[in-house]
């Protein structure tokens, strides 16, 4: 494995918000943020894959049944491939996505954020045999629910993660307001909160916007009903001339 980026500890510092994000520090000195997928989307993805495999096998046996014993031989080999290699082939050759994972927007990566390779994929999928025990994925489910990054046993041994696929967010439109200077120096977090409020306008109802903004009416030294416009102005000011 060439150039292994160091993996930052996945336990957040005490003052960080409580969430499931998994930080990977790269050699460039930045943190990549991965969002591990939990039990339900993973189970759904597996169910879809199971269905697809069932259909493949059904079609295969009907078709190969016409070829007699040669067909039987090929059928057994294909059965073997579908049982043990379906996941591995899709994960390695299709950027960590089996069809089920693709539909659910998931992908498998190494712990260090790199695309999954043959060894890791084979490990996590062979050890599925243990995750299934004693029935219906009991061990896998218990392990998944207990792990901070939702890993089943196979994932722990292989050093892999199932994460959500990143999607480029659409550019949010900041509301029109005349740029204002903040009445007091803002910390970085406060600055981002101001911008965040302005950027998320479209997703919030008017009542909720007023409610959130009025929390800041006092420190901003404005009446509650003007707080929203004030914050938008400050955000505009922070963003700079467009």
């Amino acid at each position, binding site marked *: 494995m060439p150039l292994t980026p160091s993996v930052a500890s996945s336990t957040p510092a005490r003052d960080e918000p409580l969430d499931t994000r998994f930080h990977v520090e*790269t050699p460039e000195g930045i943190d990549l943020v991965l969002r591990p997928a939990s039990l339900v989307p993973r189970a759904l993805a597996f169910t879809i894959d199971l269905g697809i495999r069932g259909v493949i096998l059904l079609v295969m046996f009907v078709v190969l049944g016409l070829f007699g014993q040669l067909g039987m031989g090929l*059928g057994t080999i294909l059965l073997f491939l579908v049982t*043990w290699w379906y996941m591995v082939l899709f994960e390695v050759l299709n950027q960590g996505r089996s069809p089920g994972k693709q539909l659910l927007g998931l992908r498998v990566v190494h712990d260090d954020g790199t695309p999954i390779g043959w060894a890791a994929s084979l490990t996590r999928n062979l050890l599925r045999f243990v995750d299934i025990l004693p029935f219906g994925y009991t061990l896998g489910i218990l392990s998944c629910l207990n792990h901070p990054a939702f890993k089943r046993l196979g994932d722990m041994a292989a050093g892999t993660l199932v994460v959500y696929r990143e999607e480029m967010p659409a550019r949010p439109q900041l509301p029109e307001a005349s740029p204002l200077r903040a009445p007091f120096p803002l910390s970085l977090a406060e600055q981002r909160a101001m911008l965040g409020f302005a950027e998320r306008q479209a997703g919030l109802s008017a009542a909720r916007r007023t409610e959130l903004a009025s929390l800041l009416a006092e420190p901003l030294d404005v009446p509650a009903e003007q707080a929203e416009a004030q914050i938008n102005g400050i955000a505009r000011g922070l963003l700079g001339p467009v």
Partner: protein
Amino acid sequence: MKQSLFEKRYEADWQRFASLLEALERGKADGQTSLGFSAEYRRICQHLALAQARGYSSHLIDHLQQMAMRGHQQFYRHRSHLGASILSFLLGGFPRLVRAEWRSVTVASLLFFGSLIAMGVLVYLFPDLIYSLVDPAQVSEMESMYDPDARRLGRFGERDSGDDWMMFGFYIMNNIGIAFQTFASGLLFCLGSVFFLLFNGLTIGAVAGRLSEIGYGETFWSFVIGHGAFELTAIALAGAAGLKLGWALLAPGRLPRGEALRLAAGKSIQLVAGVILLLLIAAFIEAYWSSMTYTTPLIKYLVGTGLWLLVLGYFLFAGRQHAPD
């Protein structure tokens, strides 16, 4: 610098990088355009760090973060030259690995071959013992399979190529499945691997003892000796890989259990890859050589012994001349 100015200044760079990423992700990038990739990737990382340090908006940071992430996926991809690595693995890596893991390999071999031989001898001496392990229907099925009279009547003689194909498929499915189970269940603190090694060893031993005892020895031994060299070794090695997994959990040494497991799994999966190759060879021999009937048992014994020596010699001596990498 205000955020909008920052965005305006570098927008063109980011768009260029994004289109390069897209080309790389679809595997359609040519070498010439990708030359500057590493420099551009590092610049994106720098912009991300700047944006975070200056408290720019979440949208911009998310955007840069995703580009950095996609760039990372391309930049640090583990590209392996599969053909070359398989060859070097076969020529030296696999036997070296088996020798390096001699502890688990020895334990697994003792469990498997020990139980096999012991049970074989016991069943040969006390024939009824086989019914404690294998049910009578299976015993009589085994007996009819290796019945010397049935063979002369053409049971194996009439096999055509389609038949060989069917058996080849069956052997692959069956044997590699067993090997995978033996490996994977080792994760249960070695218990699963120990169980499968003993269970398979005892069953095979019992059948061998029984067939020898009732006088079907020649058909049986001449049939199994050839592919047995690969198949039995492979099962023992799969067990060794499983034991290594379980042992990492039982005695992780100075590492956390998860970390010890991850390291052990890296080695184990290489053993499993070797096991798969061995079993493919075994299935091939079993379907196309062991089932042939126009050779005399003597030739089968000679070739079989040769194959056993080949496998032993391979694991003991192959790859010693190379420096370990």
